[in-house]
Every structure is written in C-alpha cells, then in structure tokens.
C-alpha cells in the first residue's frame, strides 16, 4: 500500500518560540483585527458569518497536540462558528442549525464505549481513559458532505488503527461497526423516525486501519462540541461525511458488512463505501463539484476528496459505480 507522505517542514517555517508561547494572545489580536477588516470591507456575505467565533472559552482545552504530516497544509481552515453551527446531526433536528441549538441535552460525561464482537480483548471503557491511551494529534482534514458542500476542519484525535490493534481483532473480523448513542432524552430528534435509530456506520478492516482514519475527540484544540459528535466520533476524510458516525457508544468487529444507516434508509442513493467520487453521481444530483463553505463559486470535487494518492489502492479492481 503506497502511502505518500507530505514533504517535511523546513526549519525556516518553524514558528519562533516567543510567538508560540503567546500564540493565543496573538490569535485573538490577529483574529479580531482580521475580522474587523473583513466585515468592514466585504460584509458577511463573503465571510459567511458576521462574527469570528474563535474558541469557546468554556470548552476544555486539549494540550500538547502532535502535528501530523497527514494534515492538509495548503487550504484555509473553516471558521469555528461555521464548523459548529452547520451540522447534519438528525438526532437533534433536521435543520443544519438545530444541532447547535439543541445539542445541549447531550451529556458527554460520563460516557462509555463498548468494544465487542470478533476481538480477543472485548470490554467497556470510559472515554476519559480512552483519551489517555494514545497521544492526541491535530488532523486538519477536508470533509465533503454528500450534499455537495465541504469544509476544512482541524480535528483532534488518534489513529483508528491504533485503537483497533489494541483489541486484537481475530481473523474473523472483516469489518468494524460503529453505533451511536440511542437515548431520546439526550437526543430529542430520535423521537422522530427521520432515520432508523441508533445511527450505525461501518468500515472494511483495511479502511479502518488506514492511517488517515481517526477517532476524533476534539476540534480546534478543544474537546468536541456536542453538535459535532461529542465525546468521540469517527472521521474518514476520503468518504462522504455521513460515514463519520458521531457520539459513538459501541465498536463491534464483525464478519459481515454492517448495514449502515443511510444505506438502510435509501440504498438506491447511499451505499456502504461512500467514497467521494466526482465520476459517480448521486441519483438526483451531480457529485462533480462542491461548495466549499466560505467560497462563492463551486469547486471541482476531487476523487477520494483529494486523498486518492493515499487510498485509491484500497479499491483497485473494484467497480466504484457499483460499490458507491
């Protein structure tokens, strides 16, 4: 499997230590100046939001994050406010503004994740423990929604591969299934039959152990906001966003391909693989282009969301029009 590594960072590009130590101050000053200029000059139509919503001061910060060569380096990261107020999380309502409005009923602590199925070491683990198992990394990834919009998001998480390895999957484990919380009190949208609850997603074993796949526990250097899938969610950047199951409570290793929720809902339109592919249209709309949030005109969608070099080999010989 060829994994192309991004080029190393030059010494001259390293941030001076004195700046680094005062980076939050710098960000606040720079950020507010930039916003004032932007709002004055171009208006909210162009920046997408009327206020730069930097970090939430009440959120718990995640420290000592490793940077990753797998992060995108050359694209503008979307604003925190955009990432946290434009969400498809039907457990809290169908409107994209609903999760930010209603996700306060979600209680990410205490939270347990059950690991079971075809593994040598099944068990139930508290999220706070899980977060200590692996060094947390910053992963800046593109996210492409099946609805044809996209963002660049600075996740915080750890490789799913490391998580999987820890449980010693047996030879029968061909797939990994992720299940979201089922709790109508915490997730009021689950009292509507919008989707069959709980939300289920899955990956083939080689996809799950690919270096790009992560379990995310944070965003913009802080713990995940509820509306983004707190406290732990899946991120598979070369696939459509709906593959990224949120608020995971169970990880099951299975012999057979799990029936993921959107495929169960509408198999003619949503499949198991859901690889970003401009050559395979959604039955009702084109997937050849996308609106990057913050931009006006649409941009061309890239095969595998621009991660083709790293993941295309997982699918050689597979008819991607059939296995969408």
């Amino acid at each position, binding site marked *: 499997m060829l994994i192309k590594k991004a080029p190393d960072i030059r010494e001259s590009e390293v941030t001076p230590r004195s700046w680094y130590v005062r980076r939050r101050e710098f960000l606040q000053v720079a950020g507010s100046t930039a916003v004032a200029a932007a709002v004055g000059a171009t208006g*909210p139509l162009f920046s997408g*939001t009327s206020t730069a919503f930097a970090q939430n001061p009440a959120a718990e910060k995640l420290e000592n994050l490793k940077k990753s060569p797998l992060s995108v380096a050359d694209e503008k990261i979307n604003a925190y406010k955009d990432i946290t107020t434009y969400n498809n999380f039907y457990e809290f309502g*169908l409107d*994209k503004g609903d999760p930010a409005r209603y996700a306060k009923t979600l209680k990410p602590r205490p939270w347990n994740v059950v690991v079971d199925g075809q593994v040598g070491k099944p068990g139930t683990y508290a999220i706070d423990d899980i977060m200590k198992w692996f060094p947390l990394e910053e992963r800046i990834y593109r996210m492409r929604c099946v609805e044809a919009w996209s963002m660049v998001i600075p996740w915080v998480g750890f490789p799913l591969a490391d998580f999987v390895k820890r449980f010693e999957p047996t030879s029968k484990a061909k797939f990994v299934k992720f299940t979201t919380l089922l709790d109508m009190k915490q997730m009021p949208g689950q009292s509507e039959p*919008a989707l069959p609850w709980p939300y289920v997603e899955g990956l083939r074993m080689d996809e799950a152990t690919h270096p790009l796949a992560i379990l995310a526990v944070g965003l913009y250097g802080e713990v995940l906001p509820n509306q983004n899938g707190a406290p732990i969610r899946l991120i598979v950047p070369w696939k459509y966003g709906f593959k990224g199951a949120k608020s995971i409570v169970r990880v099951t290793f299975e012999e057979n391909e799990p029936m993921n929720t959107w495929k169960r809902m509408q198999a003619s339109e949503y499949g198991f693989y859901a690889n970003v592919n401009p050559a395979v249209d959604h039955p009702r*709309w*084109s997937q050849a282009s996308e609106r990057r949030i913050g931009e*006006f005109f*649409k941009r061309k969608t890239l095969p595998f969301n621009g991660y083709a070099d790293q993941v295309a080999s997982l699918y050689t010989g597979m008819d991607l029009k059939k296995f969408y």
Partner: protein
Amino acid sequence: MTQTQFIRRIVKPIVFAAALGPFGWLVYNAFWGDLGVNPVETITNYSGITTLRLIAITLALTPARWISGFNPIILFRRMIGLFAFFYGTLHFMTYFILDQSLQFGGVWDDVVKRPYITAGFTGFVLMIPLAITSTQGWIRRLGGRRWNLLHRLIYITALAAVLHYFWKVKLDTTYPVYYGILMGVLLTARLVQRGRKMAAVPPRRAVPIRREA
C-alpha cells in the same frame, strides 16, 4: 376616491412593498446581517420558497374572488404574478452564476440529467412568456381568450415547482408535500369552477374591461 382608485393608489403600493420584503431581507442580511454558514444556499432556498409561495398566492386570487364576490381582488394578480417571476429569476440566476459559473453547458447538462432541475427549469421558462405578455397591450394583441389560454401555463409551472422542491430535498419531504397539496387544492378549485361555468348560462360581464394600472 372610488374604491378602485383607493385600491390602486393606496393598497397596491403597500402590497408592492410587502412583496419586496423577502428581497429586502436578503439584501439587508447580505450586507449588514448574516446569511448563515452557507449564504448561497440561503439565497437559493429563500428565493425559491418565495417563488413557490407567490405562485400559490397568484393562483389563489381568482378563487378568492369567486368566493368573496369581491372583484377588485383581480387587480393584484398581475403584480403578484410578476413578483413570482422576479423571485424565480433571482433563484435561477443564483444557480446560473454561483452553481454553474455562468456556463450554459452546465445548466443544460443538469436540465437533461437531473429531474429536479428539469422540473425547475421548465417551470421557470414557462413563466417567461407570461411575464412578457402581462401587459394590457398584449391582452389586446392576443385577445382575451388566447391570452387566458396562454396564461394557463402557470398551472404547469405550479406543478413543476412542487416537483422541483420534492425531488431536491434530501430526506424531509414534509414541506414539498404540503405545497403539493396546496397547489392541488388551488388547481382543483379552478376545475370545479370551470365545470360550473360550462353547466351554467354564460354570465354577463361582472367587471367591465378597464385598463389596469
């Protein structure tokens, strides 16, 4: 002032301003407020739903006139119809400029391949001759009977608009279905009225033909 004069000089400008409301909201939020995380989507969806609503109101005016017996209602039909066309144009132009980067090839590709765009484009295009022939001059040129026949194209536009909406939404078809029922009711009302007219003796003109302002 006669009743008609009152309507023309006072009420119509108020309704005109009200119909500009949604456009005003968009302009205001574009420059001084907030069009949300995905402004193009906000503009597209809001202009689209306004078009659909104005088509419904236009179609409701004649039945309202029959039911109430208040003939001057008809004085608003052209204005509301033209506003529906205005918002439809805004909706289409947003798509043409920002989704298709002014490429007509891209538009045609969509019209041919995506049923929801086939429906939307059809509905929009059919409004063009209606907008052009909305004037008194054209009513005279075509004659009342032919003009009325041409303007029945709005029925196709109304159905096309509902299909466009229904086929576009990802999952939640609640609102497209509501509008479908609404349009169904409005179109059925006309069929019923036409049935009654056929059965009855042709009535003498209730409202004399007069130049509409």
